[in-house]
């Protein structure tokens, strides 16, 4: 627990991330650009493309997750996709598919689902100059996709996790 991110004294700023506490139940999507710890209950998807999501020991999540890193101590029903790693810790319970560069499932975790690794992106090589550039030539699909991903991660960020329909 001590490794969880903590808020600073200043209510307006968050030093290391956000926390959904044990007593909170939320229905709705969460998107954001900071680390998040869920210790309560969430029904809905989570999208933190450049950050880390931690489901605490008492956390329960029904929904899909896309994040840079995902660490599960609690219970998840839904697919987990991480651009870096997914860790399912001892005694965690996960039903859903995992996609990550490094999926890690500890002994004594309950897991039911597909595991698929994502290959790490190789550093981009400068493309050899074409002998004669065709007029109106388009960039490759791969390059466009890679650029689009990083751009959206930078520009769409800004907002802290958005929580909807708080129940109490």
């Amino acid at each position, binding site marked *: 627990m001590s490794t969880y991110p903590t808020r600073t004294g200043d209510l307006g700023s968050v030093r290391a991330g956000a926390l959904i506490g044990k007593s909170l139940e939320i229905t709705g999507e969460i998107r954001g650009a900071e680390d998040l710890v869920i210790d309560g209950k969430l029904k809905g998807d989570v999208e933190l493309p450049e950050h880390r999501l931690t489901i605490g020991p008492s956390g329960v999540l029904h929904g899909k997750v896309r994040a840079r890193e995902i660490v599960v101590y609690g*219970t998840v029903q839904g697919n987990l996709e991480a651009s870096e790693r997914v860790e399912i810790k001892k*005694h965690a319970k996960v039903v859903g598919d995992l996609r990550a560069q490094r999926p890690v499932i500890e*002994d004594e975790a*309950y*897991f039911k689902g*597909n595991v698929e690794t994502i290959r790490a992106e190789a550093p981009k090589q400068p493309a050899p100059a074409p002998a004669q550039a065709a007029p109106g030539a388009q960039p490759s699909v791969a390059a466009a996709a890679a650029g689009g991903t990083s751009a959206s991660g930078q520009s769409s960020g800004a907002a802290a996790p958005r929580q909807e329909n708080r129940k109490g």
Partner: protein
Amino acid sequence: MSFPPLPRSAGSPAGGGPSPTRRSHAFEQMSEYLGGFSGGQVVDLGGAHQSTIDFVTGCGHRLYAENLLLTLGSLIDNSVLGGLPGNRTDDESPAALPADCLAFPPSSVDAMLCWDRLQFLPEKLASTVVDRIHRIMAPGGLLLAMFHPEQASAAAPLCCRVADARHLQIGTAGAARPLRPFNTRSIERFFHKFESLKFYLTRENLQEVIVRR
């Protein structure tokens, strides 16, 4: 959402220490098969183990992991399962599987690591599982199964992990007991819908079987 309770030793070798590693000729055949293509669907019915995940995904395949005994726990006799939440006798065990058990489209699974799980299921349920496996496996796909020797009525389910392309790490997990003995003939009958079977007898008198769909 409900998850089956985990027995203390489920998913980890008994005693918590490292399990012995030994060569498996049956798994060697499976490894050769898995190394021959990529992008396939592999199913492990023994649960999720990191070394197996690393091996299978390293071959370029997807791995679906599920502990069959935990999934079917409520359909199986309590005394058979030891710490698992079973509550039925063998005769009462239904022949139907839960909707979420091995719910793959037909002919979509390329390989299956069944280990010794079938020997711990009641007869009707085991036959239903084998029928389902036959339906979801792609023609030509391979299944690895293990059967305890006829006299090993007190054997516990194996906790099998892939160590490398030739070796398995085998311990025990849980307190279940095999429901019935299998000999070569009964194993052949069990998989009669499949194309071929190849038997390997290990030093522990464990029958390892490679079944081709």
